[in-house]
């Protein structure tokens, strides 16, 4: 970066005057000015531990992110602690910032990111890695951890992708896996003590203190040794006191953490414009492809009354018109019916809509759906059978039968819904063309049933299908990924079959993603430290915003990977389409999600045998290992409580 930018970054002065002159020349300048309702600006000097929190994507995607919003509020509530937010700038502003020497800034006070103690990034997806490098470079922070000094922030990764931080091990100083609420406070305390003592031992010392807690992973304190065939031999701590494995963090009582209390309300348009409440965390349905379900165990419900309070306060604080009840499978909350009814009753006059982003076919019922749409539109229902054939759904342990689905959509169409959306995956382990082609049969039966019960031809079913990417800490972590070419060929056959159906084809929409981005995601999600060179090469070649179709370049990733991986004797296929064996040391084995590796392997074998596993909320424990390893337990209702009306509506006119 330019020298003058480096000099500017030395101080914590606001760079807004310099930035402001650039804003008339960029698209949607409002996303860079901050000032959102419920944002917090604290005097710099009144604080001693300062966090810059980044969601490494565009503002419109990053602002609604619950993780960042929660940590922002948790940190800012602390005396002496300050947290500000920063997002990826679009290429138009990046070019101007480089030209005029304006560093990466926070949107709250427009302070240079380099001036903070911690630069924390939340990675929901691996496709944000190049954006991290762009932000580090713009901030004037050395790209690699080894080149940083005591005056650079601690670069910290969190979020689901951080459960395998090895591909970005060169660029980050530390990673935290699991729930962040308590973890950021513990880290703050350690950093505060170290600063108060006059920063003894410099950067290495503070990282060592963090690593010794067992809850902060510092990649530099571990050496990776490789076998001649390219596989990992072992991963060894290289400092005394550094644990062999780093544990994930788990927050137990969600009612004790009612965040965000004051959700941010942006002026700019963003992807989710609603008041979101996480109604429970974790999921034990056991879908074998689902990393989120595996790494967030056990299930911890927020109580119905806790949810009611959060909604009430949040709506007052924001003015949003929609409430999103978030979780990995929201209809599974033990009191979801009472929650939906109670909220619909409370907000009937205010035209507040309710949404349940993730609903399982087998947990759906029409009463619930009616409550959800009572105050709003009845536009469409979305279900995710994921696998097209009964056999496939046994492999992935998504225990939804075709009969369940047909019964559910029949109820929906019969009750006035006109549109059903179905999500599937392509490229699942053991899948054949026939499994995928059965998706067309399912969609046809859905339409046939819909026409029958609604007595109308004016109904639709949209099939949406994406490529499966095997993820760390899941039973499919050993599975071969289907190549982009085979994925595309399979999807083409399905498309032809749907379009060729004269009777039903025109009622079935078909949306799919080609297989190429999935291969890059696969490379990054199951990669090891050698992938760092690929990420850096892609960044230096101009790669940014890889989650955006218009910015993503598959060819760039493949060219850079060919060059960067050649010296190691491995290639993209080795990381993606290669099946791993039981003995192989996986790059993330030293990051402890609580799941017993042997249990994951057994579950992988069960998948191959098409054997299903139940949900431990309703059946005995099947020993996935999380609760004993993490000293946690399932926390679910029912509490038996109800949401009461908030005010007496329209009191009788009794003079």
């Amino acid at each position, binding site marked *: 970066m330019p020298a003058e930018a480096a000099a500017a970054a030395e101080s914590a002065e606001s760079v807004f005057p310099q930035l402001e002159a650039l804003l*008339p020349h960029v698209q949607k300048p409002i996303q860079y000015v901050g*000032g959102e309702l419920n944002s917090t600006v604290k005097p710099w000097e009144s604080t001693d531990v300062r966090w810059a929190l980044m969601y490494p994507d565009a503002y419109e995607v990053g602002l609604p992110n619950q993780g960042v919003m929660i940590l922002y509020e948790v940190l800012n509530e602390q005396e002496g602690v300050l947290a500000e937010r920063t997002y990826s700038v679009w290429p138009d502003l990046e070019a101007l910032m480089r030209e005029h020497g304006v560093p990466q800034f926070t949107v709250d006070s427009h302070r240079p990111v380099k001036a903070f103690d911690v630069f924390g990034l939340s990675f929901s997806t691996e496709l944000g890695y190049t954006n991290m490098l762009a932000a580090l470079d713009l901030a004037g922070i050395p790209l690699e951890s080894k080149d940083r000094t005591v005056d650079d922030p601690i670069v910290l990764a969190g979020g689901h992708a951080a459960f395998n931080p090895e591909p970005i091990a060169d660029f980050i100083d530390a990673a935290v896996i699991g729930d962040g609420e308590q973890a950021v406070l513990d880290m703050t305390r350690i950093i505060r003590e170290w600063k108060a003592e006059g920063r003894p031992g410099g950067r290495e010392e503070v990282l060592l203190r963090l690593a010794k807690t067992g809850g902060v992973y510092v990649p530099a304190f571990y050496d990776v040794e490789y076998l001649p065939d390219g596989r990992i031999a072992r991963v060894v701590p290289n400092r005394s006191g550094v644990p062999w494995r780093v544990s994930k963090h788990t927050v137990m009582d969600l009612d004790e953490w009612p965040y965000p209390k004051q959700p941010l309300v942006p002026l700019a348009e963003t992807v989710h414009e609603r008041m979101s409440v996480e109604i429970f965390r974790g999921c034990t349905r056991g879908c074998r492809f689902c990393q989120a379900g595996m790494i967030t165990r056990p299930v911890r419900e927020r109580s119905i009354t806790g949810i009611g309070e959060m909604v009430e306060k949040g709506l007052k604080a924001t003015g949003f018109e929609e409430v999103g009840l978030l979780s990995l499978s929201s209809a599974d909350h033990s009191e979801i019916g009472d929650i939906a009814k109670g909220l619909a009753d409370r907000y009937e006059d205010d035209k507040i809509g309710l949404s349940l982003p993730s609903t399982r076919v087998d947990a759906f019922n029409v009463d619930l759906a009616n409550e959800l749409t009572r105050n709003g539109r009845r536009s469409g229902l979305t279900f995710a059978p994921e696998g097209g054939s009964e056999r496939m759904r046994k492999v992935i342990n998504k225990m939804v039968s075709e009969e369940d689905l047909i019964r559910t959509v029949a109820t929906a169409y019969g009750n006035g819904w006109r549109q059903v959306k179905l999500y599937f995956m392509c490229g699942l382990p053991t899948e054949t063309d026939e499994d995928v082609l059965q998706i067309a049969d399912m969609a046809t039966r859905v339409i046939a049933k819909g026409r029958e019960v609604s007595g109308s031809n004016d109904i639709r079913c949209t099939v949406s299908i994406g490529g499966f990417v095997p993820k760390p800490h899941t039973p499919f972590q050993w599975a071969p990924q289907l190549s982009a070419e085979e994925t595309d060929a399979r999807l083409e056959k399905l498309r032809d079959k749907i379009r060729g159906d004269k009777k039903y084809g025109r009622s079935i929409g078909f949306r799919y993603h080609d297989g190429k981005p999935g291969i890059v995601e696969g490379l990054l999600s199951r990669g090891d430290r050698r992938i760092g060179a690929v990420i850096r090469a892609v960044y230096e070649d101009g790669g940014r915003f890889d989650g955006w179709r218009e910015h993503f370049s598959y060819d760039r990733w493949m060219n850079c990977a060919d060059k960067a991986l050649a010296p190691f004797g491995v290639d993209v296929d080795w990381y993606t389409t290669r099946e791993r064996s039981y003995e192989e040391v996986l790059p993330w084995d030293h990051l402890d999600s609580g799941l017993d590796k042997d249990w994951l392997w057994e579950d992988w074998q069960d998948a191959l045998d098409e054997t299903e596993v139940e949900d431990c909320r309703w059946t005995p424990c099947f020993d996935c290992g999380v609760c004993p390893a993490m000293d946690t337990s399932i926390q679910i209702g029912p509490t038996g409580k109800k949401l009461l009306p908030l005010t007496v509506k329209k009191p009788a006119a009794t003079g």
Partner: protein
Amino acid sequence: MQRIRLRYTKRGRLRFTSHRDFQRAFERALRRAEVPMAYSAGFTPHPKVSYANAAPTGTGSEAEYLEIALTEARDPDKLRELLDESLPAGLDIVDAVEARTPGLADRLTASVWELRLDGVDPEEAGRAVAAFEAAETVEVERQTKKGMRAFDARSAVVSLGLSPETHSLRADRPTDQPCAILRLVVRHVTPAVRPDDVLSGLRAVADLAPPVPAAVTRLAQGPIDAGTGTVTDPLAPDREAAPLLETAAAAATAPAPEGSA
């Protein structure tokens, strides 16, 4: 149904708010402030808000106007305070009156703009202003959706003058560098002549090229007094139409709080 007219601002960094962004923010503020809004009929009811003649994204404003329709009467001043608290600082509600006359939008026939040109020598700016004023017509071009379009930027300009101030200490972008501050009164015509077009005109007639983008703020908009060429308060007719007694009475019997029956 009661209609209330509001004047609001776009100050400081929030001048980068687009009109669409403002609309969303305002409608949320209405919810937070629990204003008894009238809703449009239809499949997706919308609160009844009419916006008039919004300033372009990136320009500040002290004088934007809108009108809202309520199902229950509210005291305009209290409503103003409540709404102002519900909006971020910078988007400030600064005036409120009950609508008692038709056609607020029709009264907004001209605007007063301040154009701050940082790093421009006031003398040089003065020469450019004089050349512009002296010209019969000043043809400028602007990129529109239909491509480049040429039009006259001079005839809509009622007056353009150099302010005696040479330093600007406005809070949003303070600077101690010398700058030229222009004051522009322009009639609302079609196609609209915007401050940017006048700046293009100054470049056309006198090669005036500011080194950084001008800081532009709308100071007022309303009817133009034909004699003096000044822009007057568009809410004045509503204020004048308010019967004094009625206003006093309304204040004394402020609506009882809801649910107190």
